């Protein structure tokens, strides 16, 4: 009886896995077929006369993937790094200086979580245009602004739990505020830094609307942006569009395989706050 129950649970799990993976399975198998093969038999395996692995070479070139990958990587990494630096510094200062002003400031950062991007995007682009910020560096700056709320909330919550005796000892030993933070406090923040990095890197990597509004030169396109134009161009040519989609997903899947534990932990922590 117990065994039957266990086996049926496992069987049910297997079915669920098939159901969850089937969209990706269908896209991957079809990406190896010629257009005719896709149209004639969308569920068949990519063997025989319709097998066409050259799709990938063609899609890779048409997509100019290396270029958009480097753009995405550079923007994501630099935005995440500056968010980490400035959010951790600000959160620490807001926790340790127990003034009324700090409290109000923290509340303002937290309340801004509710503001949907679409409600500020038009004046933002107008303003950034005037400041001559519609380029990748400007984009990174904007990510600092939009990433500030969640990152400060997470750091704030974590820092409140660290005893400040260590910091006081460091001051007595002659460290200034800057040294106290970078030599003593920041290393202690490592667990939350991992969480904040992952949460920010994930949404920045996948973000589409802000880059679409900010970046106007094709050579600066990020992966989602490039994918948008690529798919528009080849939407009826599935034999190019599908391998393009698979190529665009590969970096995320690899990242997930290696960072799974941290990602799941980060997402859980990020949502509970």
């Amino acid at each position, binding site marked *: 009886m117990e065994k039957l129950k*266990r086996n049926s649970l496992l069987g*049910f*799990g297997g079915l*669920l896995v098939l159901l969850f993976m089937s969209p990706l399975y269908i*896209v991957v198998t079809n990406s190896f077929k010629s257009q005719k093969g*896709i149209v004639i038999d*969308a*569920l068949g395996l990519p063997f025989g006369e319709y097998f066409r692995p050259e799709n990938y070479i063609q899609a890779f070139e048409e997509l100019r993937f290396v270029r958009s990958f480097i753009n995405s990587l550079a923007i994501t990494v630099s935005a995440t790094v500056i968010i980490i630096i400035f*959010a951790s*510094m*600000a959160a*620490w*200062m*807001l926790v*340790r*200086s127990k003034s009324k002003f700090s409290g109000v400031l923290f509340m303002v950062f937290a309340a*801004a979580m*509710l*503001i*949907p991007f*679409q*409600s500020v*995007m*038009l*004046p*933002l682009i107008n*303003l950034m245009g005037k400041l001559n910020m519609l380029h990748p560096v400007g984009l990174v*700056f904007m990510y*600092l*602004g*939009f990433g*500030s709320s969640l990152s400060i909330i997470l750091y704030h919550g974590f820092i409140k739990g660290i005893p400040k005796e260590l*910091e006081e000892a460091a*001051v007595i030993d002659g460290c200034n*505020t*800057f040294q106290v933070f970078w030599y003593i406090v920041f290393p202690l923040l490592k667990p939350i830094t991992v969480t904040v990095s992952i949460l920010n890197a994930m949404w920045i*990597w*996948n*973000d*589409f*609307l802000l880059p679409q509004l900010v970046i106007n030169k094709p050579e600066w396109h990020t*992966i*989602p942006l490039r*994918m*948008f134009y690529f*798919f528009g161009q080849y939407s009826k040519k*599935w034999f190019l*569009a*599908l391998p393009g*989609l698979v190529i*665009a*997903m590969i970096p*995320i899947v690899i990242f*997930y395989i290696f960072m799974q534990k941290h*990602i*799941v932990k980060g*997402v*859980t922590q990020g*949502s*509970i706050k």
Partner: protein
Amino acid sequence: MKHSKMWFGIFVGPILFAFLLVVVIPMILGIYFSFTDWNGINNNANWVGFSNYLEVFRGDEDFLNAFTFTAKFAAVSVVLINAIGFGLALFVTKVEKFSGLLRSVFFMPNLIGGLILGFVWQFIFIKAFGYIGKEMGWEFFQGWLSTTSTGFWGLAILMSWQMSGYMMVIYVAALQNIPESLIEASRIDGANALQRLRHITMPLVAPAFTVGLFLTLSNSFKLYDQNLSLTGGDPAHTTEMLAMNIYNTAFVFNNMGVAQAKAVIFLITVSVITLTQMYYSKKREVEM
């Protein structure tokens, strides 16, 4: 320990500057522009009072349609995503083998960007569904995304597939926090599985439901990428959601003042709905 004002400025200043310039000032400007005939380019906008808002409420069928479509979509997807997510969480905490593998599989879609997922599902609905429909003679599977209702359910399926794994992770964390002793005690008292779920598990994971409902509700209301890549608002703007309607009003129809009025209505709607949900969920947490 005291830090001087100078250090406060150095530590808080940079991110505060970015936050003010990117979030706070645009929000204030946005509220102001919504009362003007702003054209999006220069700043010599004239005050026009409530006329942008009146134009939205009186004559803009597409916006009213987007509003009801978004509200219906949010209602359906919030229920679907949380029910599936909670079901998955119960399931993966019950199985003895492969629990980790199951979790990884269910969570993975959440990491892939919405834009790319929309294109993936566009292929599934149009080509794979079409093929199944043709081979099996099932009319129901044919012509997906070409009508408003299949576009609606297409979006709901896509979002359930993408977000239920995310909710699962949150619910798993909550389920694991339930003390084993409570479950044992209820078992000794003779409670069956259903009673345990209703009277022990559900009340104890109530805080996670507050979070789950908040995330799915606000994500559904703000949805843009998946909407754009799956249906693009077709057919004839009937599957257009609020965010896309604002975008199109601004950049396709170049009607900036009206678009910004819509953006302010959007801001108020999202805040009121999510705050109301938080208030009632928190209240229920206590009552349960």
